[in-house]
């Protein structure tokens, strides 16, 4: 995907990230989907994917604000999600800059690393704040996110390439 994209792609990417943050109450309407949020972290995966592929509206400042919104909605200390999002963003950006050629495996492992770093930060903060957490739940969530990334990658690449084609026609 090229660095300069048409507006549709960027707007859709941005809306997807926002929806993953505020759409929790919609997802919970479906019994089947109720536990999806426990299986993988859609927000982290989307932020990594769009940051790695350099979508325009996902900047450090946007992620900071979106993080505050998420913290406010979820009910954790303000700033925790902001730092987690920005860590993922920075790792994705670094991986994007150092890649010599497009190898998916390296992108995938960097995604795993970024989520692991983000969760380590979140859990360390919870530990110092004496908030209860089950580390196994986070470990399963990390594994689920790591396994889900290739599937999400295929879906998003295919969708955004289609949109790009449609825009060019």
């Amino acid at each position: 995907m090229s660095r300069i994209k048409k507006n549709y792609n960027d707007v859709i990417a941005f809306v997807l990230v926002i929806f993953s943050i505020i759409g929790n109450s919609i997802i919970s309407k479906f019994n089947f989907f109720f536990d999806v949020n426990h299986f993988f972290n859609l927000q982290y995966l989307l932020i990594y994917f769009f940051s790695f592929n350099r979508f325009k509206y996902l900047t450090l400042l946007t992620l900071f604000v979106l993080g505050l919104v998420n913290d406010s909605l979820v009910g954790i200390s303000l700033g925790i999600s902001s730092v987690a999002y920005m860590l993922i963003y920075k790792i994705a950006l670094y991986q994007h800059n150092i890649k010599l050629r497009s190898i998916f495996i390296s992108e995938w492992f960097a995604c795993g690393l970024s989520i692991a770093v983000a969760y380590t930060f979140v859990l360390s903060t919870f530990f110092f704040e004496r908030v209860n957490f089950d580390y196994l739940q986070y470990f399963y969530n990390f594994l689920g996110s790591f396994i889900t990334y290739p599937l999400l990658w295929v879906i998003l690449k295919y969708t955004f390439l289609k949109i790009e084609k449609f825009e060019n026609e």
Partner: protein
Amino acid sequence: MKAENSWFDKSTFRTYLIFLLSFLLIYLDFSNQKIIKELKKYINDATTYSAYIITYPIKKLIEIPREIKIIIDLKDQKNQLVLLESKIEELQQQNYFLKQDYKKNQEFLKEEEPYQSEVIYAKVISNIDSIFSNSFMLNKGSQDGLKIGNPVIKNNNLIGQISEVNRNSARGIFLTDINSRVPVVIGESMHNAILVGSPLKQSKLSLEFLPKEYKIQNNDKIFTSDIDGVLKKGIAVGYIELKEGSNNYIIHLNYEILQIDRVSIFIN
């Protein structure tokens, strides 16, 4: 070396600044600073209502098939009558069980004065089910008299407690949230225990501090206890299902937490 390429150029400075601001926010929030506490109340109100407004059309769209189905079902009046008749029977049966329950509760509370609580009715404006929390937002806040710890009730069953109060909204945590701790009494022997949210368990609930001598019976009912002075005694919570051939058990709540739309909150 040019300023743009140095380790402390404009972009790097901005990055450090935003990270620093985030850490500062976390510290201020953790240390319960009054300014951040007040600011958070406004931020929470704004984000809760914004999320509610943005997601409202989508929620309504999702509900359309269900509502169409209800309309189609209602057209068939004969079936409706049969349904009503069966419902009457069901209600009569329920009435019988309620009488039985009432008798039990009377015994349970015979030495206690019946509690009188002021009740506030609130609408659930969003459910949050993420790895970080299992909570819900209500459209009533401190201006309506809500306080942290108030029990949230649906159909006379406890479903959670208020954990955070803003001006015009409040957050309640479900009993299944990992941070939920509710003192309860179990079974006819009324043993004390703490009902704890355990996300990895099948029922997402577990019992802690159960006396060793207590043997769990199938269908043992769970009620709240006033041992911590926050909750009132005798609010129904759920029941225990004992797994056959083992000492393992599953805790069932009396009310399906997915279905909540309106709730009552005891504020006294």
